[in-house]
C-alpha cells in the first residue's frame, strides 16, 4: 500500500542499489540522506521531486520549499545532505512509476521531517525485497 524498496545489489558493502516501485499517488516523506551520495534514475513513469531547506535549529514553522521538478523517464537526479532535503512523489493517478536508486555509502536509517513544523524523527528503512526475495518482517 506504499512504495516498495527492492534491493538489487549491495556492492560488497560500498553501496546499495535498489529499485523503488511507486503506485498511483504514492509519495515519500521529506527526508535526508545520512551523509551519503544519492543518485536516482527514472525507469518508468514520472516522479516529482520537491527540494526543501534544512529547518532552523530552533525552527517551529513551516519548512521552506527550494524548488520542485518533475523527472521524466530516463532522467537522473542527485542529492546529498549539503544540497538539502527532498520529498519524492508519484503524482499520477493513472500510472505507476519505477526508479533506480544508488546510495553510497549504504545507510539504513535517516531522518523524516514534518513539513508543518520542521520537527525531525529518525526512522529505520526497510526493504520490501532483497535480491528478488520478499523480505519477511
Amino acid at each position, binding site marked *: *500500500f506504499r512504495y516498495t524498496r527492492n534491493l538489487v545489489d549491495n556492492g560488497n558493502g560500498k553501496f546499495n542499489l535498489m529499485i523503488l516501485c511507486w503506485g*498511483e*499517488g504514492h509519495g515519500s*516523506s521529506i527526508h535526508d540522506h545520512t551523509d551519503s551520495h544519492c543518485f536516482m534514475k527514472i525507469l518508468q513513469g514520472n516522479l516529482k521531486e520537491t527540494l526543501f531547506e534544512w529547518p532552523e535549529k530552533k525552527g517551529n514553522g513551516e519548512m521552506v520549499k527550494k524548488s520542485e521538478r518533475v523527472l521524466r523517464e530516463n532522467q537522473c537526479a542527485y542529492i546529498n545532505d549539503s544540497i538539502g532535503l527532498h520529498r519524492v512523489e508519484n503524482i499520477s493517478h*493513472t500510472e505507476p512509476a519505477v526508479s533506480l536508486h544508488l546510495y553510497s555509502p549504504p545507510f539504513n536509517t535517516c531522518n523524516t521531517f*514534518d513539513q508543518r513544523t520542521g520537527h525531525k524523527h529518525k526512522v529505520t528503512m526497510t526493504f520490501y525485497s532483497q535480491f528478488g526475495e520478499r523480505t519477511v518482517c
Partner: protein
Amino acid sequence: LPAGLSQWFPALEVLDVSGTGLTEMGTELLSLPCLHTLLAKNNRLGGPGSLPKGLGQAPLARSLRVLNLSGNRFSEVPPSLLQLRGLRSLSLGGNRLHGIPPDIQELQSLEFLYLGGNFITAIPPELAKLPCLRYLVLCDNKIQSIPPQLAQLHSLRSLSLHNNLLTYLPREILNLVHLEELSLRGNPLVVRFVRDLTYNPPSLQELAGRTIKTRNIPYTPSDLPESLVRYLSLASNCPNPKCGGVYFDSCVRQIKFVDFCGKYRLPLMHYLCSPECSSPFSSASQSSTSQSESDSEDEASVAAHRMQKVLLG
C-alpha cells in the same frame, strides 16, 4: 469495442483497452462471461454511453473483479457501475467527480477504491458500509471533513487523504484498529490548540431532553409525540469521562490534539456538552506559539498502539 468481440474471444478474462481514445463501451461487454479484469484508463469515457445498459443482468455483474477507469472524463459515478456486485477493485482516479454516490454501498465486495485526483468535496457516510474495504484513496480532492461513520470500516488498512481541505479529523478515527497507514500532508490542519470554537446555547427542548436522560425519567412511546420519542433516542454521551451528561444538538466543538506514534499531533474534533465540560487531562493554558502538550494520556497511549504509520510531514 469491435462488434463480435465475444464471439471471437468467448473465454476472455482480461481486457485492456487503455489509451485507445474510447468514448463508449457497448453491449459487446455484456456477453463476455469470464471477464474478471477490465482496464480502460486514459480514454475519453464519461458521457452517457460510456457503460452499456443492462450491466446488472449480465454475467459481468458477478464475474468482474477489477475495473480501472482512471484518467477519463467521468463527472459522476455511472449508476450502472454500481450493479457490478462482484467488484473487488475500482479506480476512478483522475476524473472529474464532484461527489461519491451513497449507493456506492452496493459494491459489497469492494476491497480497493481509488478516487484520487478528482473534485470531490464530501464523503457520504454510506461509504462506511463497505465491510471488505482495505485500501481507500481520496488524495488530491477538495474534501473538507471526514464523516465519523468512516470509523466503521473495520477492514481498512490504508487511508490516503493528502492534499485536501481538512482542518481536523473526527476522533472516531481512533477506532480504526487495523489502520496501518494514513497520509495527511497538504491539508490545512489546525496547528495551534483551539478551544471553544462554537457554542449555541441549548434550546428549551434540549434542556428538557437532557434532564430526562440524565435523571432517567421513565417514559413510554404513548407518553410523548413520536417526534419527541425519536429526538430522545438521538442523545449522545459527552466524551468527558468525568461528566455524566448528554447532549442533543447543542454541543461545544473542541479540537483536541492526540499523539500518534509519539511524534505527530493531529487535531481531532471532540463534541462536549458545554464549554465548562473539558477533558480532565487537558491543559488549561492558552499556549500561543508552541503546540500544546499531549492532553489525554489515555487517549495518546491508545492512539499510539493503533496507528503505526502516519505520513504527515
